[in-house]
């Protein structure tokens, strides 16, 4: 089952990467990043079956960091929305030349 889990992890990670690249809605991009984090979690749990419980502890830390990241990221999105009245990343062009 370890191999299947690694394949699943790779597939979900690639889908998440594609989503980050191809969507314009900042919140969906953020969701796709969460998807990538989850793909890595699947790989960690699979490797825990190979090397011991440390893999599962790492997943615990990843989840905590993901929660912190979601809180800060959504706060940033809210404060950007106050400025631009949109979450379309195409309209955030202040640093574009």
């Amino acid at each position: 089952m370890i191999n299947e889990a690694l394949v699943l992890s790779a597939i979900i990670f690639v889908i998440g990467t594609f989503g980050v690249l191809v969507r314009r809605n900042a919140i969906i991009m953020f969701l796709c990043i969460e998807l990538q984090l989850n793909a890595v979690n699947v790989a960690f749990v699979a490797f825990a079956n190979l090397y011991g419980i440390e893999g599962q502890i790492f997943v615990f830390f990843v989840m905590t960091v993901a929660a912190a990241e979601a809180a800060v990221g959504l706060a940033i999105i809210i404060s950007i929305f106050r400025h631009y009245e949109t979450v379309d990343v195409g309209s955030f062009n202040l640093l574009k030349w």
Partner: protein
Amino acid sequence: MTVFLFYVFAGIAIGASIGVVIARSPVGSLLFMVTALAAIAGTFVLMEAHFLAAVQIIVYAGAIMVLFLFVIMLLNLGHEAQRDLKGGAFAVVSAGLAGAMAGLLALQLRGSEVVAGSGAGAEAIAAANAEYGVVGAIARPLYTTYVVPFEITGILLLVAIVGAVALAKRGEQS
């Protein structure tokens, strides 16, 4: 049976992940994401990570996804009828990039040696589960060997809370 269930959960997870990327409305995307997280929690159970499966459902599918839903509702998104997928050359380049990444991962997975059944760590985890219980098996190393990272995680969460409040608060001048 376990392998069959794993394939079922993996299929649901992959389908829901594709749904996250292609769903039209943000709320639909979010519901697909909850489905994907639940399916991934199912695979965690099958890989003997019961505590993580519970945390995945409670924290991820429960708390974090509700936070996303709250922000989507607060910002009143999802009324635009047009798709927000990037089109044209950028989409082609993105697809190529994702394909290249998939190819590299497939090459790596093909090159690695095949592990049949469960590995050496699975016996250790099963023994720890039998001795300390499912939660205790994770809690013991977390509070002994990894206690410093654990405390740092607490500080990180505190900083994140302060940062989120400071960012989302309306400034006095506006």
